[in-house]
């Protein structure tokens, strides 16, 4: 890659890192390896990294670690693959293992932890230290049983994204006199208002090639969190609570109350399955808008139409998908990237420890497009209001839960759950059949 970097900016970045090193690093019990690395003891070493994120995210990652690399002399060589899930197993089987790996979902990481391939990060990242860096729920989501069956810290969260967001075309939305709903009842009222005005409120699309249906599973998960207890959600994602149970069925029916109503969905229910998830928000930006609301994670802005400059906060904005039952508070559904280590060299320890600090993400946060899960991240580090707003929603959530389909076994979470939801929405199956089929596909232990 040929990038030019401003040398004075480089110096300043190093200077600010040095400052952090002298204050923040010593304030908390960060591992000795990080201190050593920042003192330049591992100059000339290489840490190989492998992950699924590519393109813009890869550039941002490389820029983000540049200052650390220059200060420590550790070269972090990141390699991405679009076929990450398939390749990582082949490479580990053949012994061609990268030092650190970025898993897009903890379910896959759990397999490698169980197979005894991952290093227990708890050996150098103490529980006390980790608790100063992350909320407990993130640590729980990174802790998986190792080969012995005992839980171990298998991965650390670097970046997250929040899914419980509803996007709307702000300019037209304000012009039409609509108000952002803060409760479920207000959202239903808004829906009815839009219908009374002769429009369809929701833009929904779940087509995604072989992965068609994943966007539907997000909705089910949102409704699970809003109509059921967290215990039920956790039991559901671990397989204890069946899809056929009244709780899951209730969540699915809540989704159906919107999706299966032709008046509420642009193009009608039949358009959901044939519309690509990336094209779904486009009708929001037609003039006048053809639909007004679109629920999707913060990444969706990269799919918004590019034929004109859409200014965040002016042309579009988002609100938190309100809770339904006050008893279940304001849950946030998240996805994220978790780093695990396959090697245990000092320089690898230093890099992993570096990733547990919010300040390591500063360049990425300023460039936009990601949210930090770290406790020590300041809101003013975010480069734009959209990301900052998303971070505020995450901070204000009463509970945080990971995308359920990513926690389930691959056969379900990346297979039958997608397919059966698609079959249900397209009308080729009724809800009971779909839920029964998903239960049947759950692998026996």
């Amino acid at each position, binding site marked *: 890659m040929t990038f030019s970097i401003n040398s004075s900016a480089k110096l300043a970045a190093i200077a600010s890192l040095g400052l952090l090193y002298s204050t923040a690093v010593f304030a908390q019990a960060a591992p000795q390896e990080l201190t050593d690395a920042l003192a330049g003891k591992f100059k000339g070493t290489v840490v190989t990294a492998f992950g699924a994120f590519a*393109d813009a995210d890869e550039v941002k990652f490389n820029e983000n670690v540049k200052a650390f690399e220059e200060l420590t002399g550790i070269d972090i060589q990141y390699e991405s693959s679009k076929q990450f899930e398939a390749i990582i197993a082949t490479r580990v089987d053949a012994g061609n293992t990268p030092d650190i790996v970025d898993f897009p979902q903890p379910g896959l990481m759990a397999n490698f932890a169980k197979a005894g391939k991952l290093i227990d990060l708890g050996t150098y990242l103490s529980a006390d230290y980790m608790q100063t860096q992350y909320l407990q729920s993130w640590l729980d989501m990174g802790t998986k049983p190792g080969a012995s069956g005992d839980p171990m810290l298998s991965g650390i969260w670097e970046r997250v994204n929040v899914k419980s967001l509803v996007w709307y075309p702000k300019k037209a939305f304000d012009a039409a006199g609509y108000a952002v709903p803060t409760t479920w009842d207000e959202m239903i009222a808004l829906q009815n208002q*839009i219908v009374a005005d002769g429009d369809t409120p929701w833009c929904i699309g779940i087509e995604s090639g072989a992965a068609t249906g994943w966007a539907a599973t997000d909705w089910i998960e949102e409704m699970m969190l809003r109509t059921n207890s967290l215990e039920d959600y956790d039991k559901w994602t671990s397989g204890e609570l069946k899809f056929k149970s009244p709780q899951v069925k209730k969540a699915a029916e809540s989704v159906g109350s919107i999706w299966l109503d032709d008046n509420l969905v642009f193009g009608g229910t039949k358009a959901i399955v044939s519309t690509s998830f990336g094209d779904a928000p486009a009708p929001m930006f037609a003039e006048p808008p053809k639909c007004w609301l679109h629920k999707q994670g913060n990444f969706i802005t990269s799919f918004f139409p590019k034929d004109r400059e859409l200014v965040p906060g002016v042309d579009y904005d988002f609100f938190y998908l309100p809770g339904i039952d006050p008893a279940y508070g304001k849950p946030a559904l998240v996805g994220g990237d978790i780093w695990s280590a396959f090697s245990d060299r000092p320089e690898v320890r230093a890099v992993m420890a570096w990733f547990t600090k919010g300040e390591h993400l500063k360049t990425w946060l300023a460039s936009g497009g990601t949210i930090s899960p770290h406790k020590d991240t300041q809101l003013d580090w975010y480069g734009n209001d959209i990301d900052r707003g998303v971070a505020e929603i995450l901070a204000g959530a009463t509970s945080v839960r990971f995308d359920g389909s990513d926690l389930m076994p691959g056969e379900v979470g990346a297979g039958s759950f997608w397919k059966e939801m698609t079959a249900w929405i397209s009308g080729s199956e009724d809800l009971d059949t779909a839920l029964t089929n998903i239960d049947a596909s759950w692998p026996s232990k």
Partner: protein
Amino acid sequence: MTVTTKRRPSPRAALSGIALALLCLLWLLPTVGLLVSSFRTADDVRSTGWWTVLPHRDWRTVATIEPGKDIDRNGIMEFAGVSGTFEELRAGLVAADGRRVIWLGNRRLGTVQVQELQWKSNLSLTVSNYENVLTGKQYEITNERGVTETLRGDDLSNAFLNSLAVTLPSVLLPLVVGAFAAYGFAWVRFPGRTALFALVVTLLVVPLQISLVPVLSDYVRIDLNGTYLAVWLAHAGFGLPLAIYLLYNYIASLPRELLEAAMVDGASHLTIFWRIVVPLSGPILASYAIFQFLWVWNDYLVALIFIGSQPNVQVLTMRLAEIVGSRGNDWHLLTAGAFVSMILPFAIFFALQRHFVRGLTAGSVKS
């Protein structure tokens, strides 16, 4: 006196000509669509089909009517000579004179458009896709001090060269080894020849996927993985059974008398191979080279496993897969990327196509 008769095609030949032309057209249509799409803007690609660049009739607004404040928007309304409910007007009503009256926007704020059918074509073409692909995508990075700079991502040139570096030896290696082996199987008598040949042909049915992990772990053990040599050997190995089988069929059918004459004259096997067999086998060598070239050039899996996707070594197919972005948000760039990656195979094919056709038909008619 010379009589020149103009050859007139027989009806049967004309018919088959037309059928062939139709088939070609049908076959080429998706590629033409891809080519047209590669010159369209991202939003056009997403919203309309490529055929809309051709002239077609579409509604165009000729007048806009502001519905008055006091009109009853829940009842029957009348505009420009047609009347209907809001829902009917939203769907569009065609007046007697062929004009369409359509309500645009919602019930409270919308306007009424009077439209006429007019010829139009979506001719807003752009080369920006090719620009993006050839010079690299642009990314805006703001560092922690708030300084924003624009970075350019990788362009295709590096990947193009890498692909060449992978492909050329991966074609030459099995070609040379395969030709030697085919000659040996065809003209050298040695014990176990038939069994060995049968074994090689049997290898044709072994799918390369099942050997990925064993080969990779061997490569890791001898520290070969991630090098070009690794992928050359892999391609050569996977390509050899077909090479030997294809070349054997051709070389074995060369006239026996020719080779025997050379032998009587005292030529060694090596001399016969270089002076007689290779010059006579031009067409089959060229067609195997094309086969193998296309296969290696378009290969994704073998390169993915044995070289990986580090930017300094990644091949074109891998670069193309990455061009669509982390979540496929830039898939429209694939159109331009596909055409750029096609340039070399096109050139090779047209340069060698004469041999290609001869190679395919050679040996099919026994004299």
